[in-house]
């Protein structure tokens, strides 16, 4: 065996080691999840008593574990507000156009929840109920929110059910009123989704 053969063998060994190290590093990177399916229900109490729900299944987003102790998530969840449906056309029109002003475009057409923190959750394998905090962007305004989340493993994915209150005046939304009937200032948002595991590369902090 000559010197060139020895050098070539050494390079191959190094390549193998580098590839192994990269693979090991990648596998150690925190996992990510992409919303596979979900529903958002917004419970709107009416000023005359009773309440109605606005619903959509246009929920999307990708989340990744940024820190496990306690859990902090990179990425965001996003809802297409133009798809919110209250069951009747007039109410939909008022909700989308007059109050949420989805026609104004970016910052108004979608609502996003990011910077999610789960202070009582410990590690990526957490299951159970935990409070959460997040940054909520609605109607061009970003405000902190906090609520409760229930997390369950479902196969290789995760099922999440979360709820939190939103005070409409804090987001510069005009008081919804029409001919003496309106929606009270505080609405309840309920989010339910199943997220499937994905490579975390595309998840933005």
């Amino acid at each position, binding site marked *: 065996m000559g010197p060139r053969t020895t050098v070539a063998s050494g390079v191959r060994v190094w390549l193998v080691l580098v590839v192994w190290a990269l693979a090991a590093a990648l596998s150690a990177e925190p996992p990510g999840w992409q919303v596979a399916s979900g529903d958002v229900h917004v*419970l709107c*109490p*009416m*000023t*005359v*008593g*009773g*309440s*109605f*729900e606005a619903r959509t299944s246009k929920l999307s987003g990708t989340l990744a574990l940024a820190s496990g102790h306690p859990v902090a998530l990179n990425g965001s969840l996003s809802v297409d507000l133009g798809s919110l449906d*209250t*069951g*009747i*056309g*007039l109410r939909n*029109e008022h909700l989308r*156009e007059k109050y949420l002003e989805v026609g104004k475009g970016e910052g108004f057409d979608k609502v996003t929840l990011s910077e999610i923190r789960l202070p009582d959750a410990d590690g990526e394998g957490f299951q159970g109920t935990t409070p959460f905090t997040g940054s909520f962007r609605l109607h061009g305004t970003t405000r902190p929110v906090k609520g409760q989340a229930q997390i369950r493993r479902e196969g290789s994915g995760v099922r999440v059910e979360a709820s939190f209150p939103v005070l409409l005046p804090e987001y510069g939304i005009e008081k919804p009123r*029409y*001919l*003496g*009937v309106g929606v*009270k200032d505080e609405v309840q948002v309920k989010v339910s989704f199943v997220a499937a595991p994905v490579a975390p590369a595309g998840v933005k902090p």
Partner: protein
Amino acid sequence: MSRTGTIVSIVVAAVLAATAVEAEPMFLSRQYNRCTSCHYSAGGGLLTPYGRSLSRQELSTTGRSPAGATPGAPGTGEEAFLFGALGDKLGPLSLGFDTRPSHLHIDTSPTPNRDFFMNADLWAAWRAHGWTVYGELGRQPTLNPPSSKIDSYEYWVGYESEKGLGFRVGRFFPAFGVNFADHTDYSRTPLQFNSFDQVYGVELSRSGERNLIQVSLGPGHADPIIHENTSAFTATARFQRDLNTRTVLAVSGIYRASTDLLASERGGGLAFGISPVSHLTIWTEGDVIWSQGQGTPEYVLVNETSLELFRGFWLKVSPQLLTAFGDTSGGSWRIAFEADFLPRTHWHLSATYYRDESRSVSFVTKTFIAQLHLYL
């Protein structure tokens, strides 16, 4: 009078009797679980400006304004009183006119076909700063002798705070169960809350996001107090729990003291409404009424299932059971089928077929009524 004759008389009286414009519980499918979303009075009657707007934009087949059009001010659209002819001159005063030219056919009646005005009522309501003053004046048919008179069967003053605490004083129907749009349904007569059975009283209410509580107290039915100088203390209570925006449970109770002619009564009812899918609403109410000295109570079971086939066109089916005091095998079965068509704001055409069958004798009555319901 024979039993069959009695049944025919009851059917004729029930269908001929005028009625207030009842609320439409079928709108639970639109996530409206309170009558007062669209009506000034709990249980129905004059539409609020919001209710009028909804009757045009969401109920009529062709009335809806084009997408993106800005709804006009109250009183200015076609949904307003007299098609908006008065503009916004009325301010916080709302007016409404309601009439129902009808054709009635009862196969067992000596005069099977009749054409008549079921009612012709003028309504007025003034609402400002939480206060409401409400009244009706209209034509009331009288059966003995067959004629009519001008009278008022509902008038009250009420207040509701922003927190949902309210009261009203005057003449009205006390809250009990579900006020179905078909005023002849079996749940009304046994309670003595039929067409003109309003009481004098005070009602206290608490309307919250998920609960509605209504309690009424008073000296009893208004007409006997006015015309016969007799009264019977009457108290009712109703608790409604909205299990979600399309599912409602209501528990009701009533106590009525005795008079020189009638024994005291007490009763309870349970009503459950659900809209499992869009355009479908199912309401079921069961009541039991005890009358002093009658032994076995009277039972009522009413179901009303409504399906919107297309915008403004509804089909309803309503099986009903009514037993008799002291005889749970007595009473009547009813099955009712109805088609409702609301082609344009203010116009409501309905056709209803009833089949009433006595449970104690072999006797069936078939009734058909067609109505043009104009609410201006």
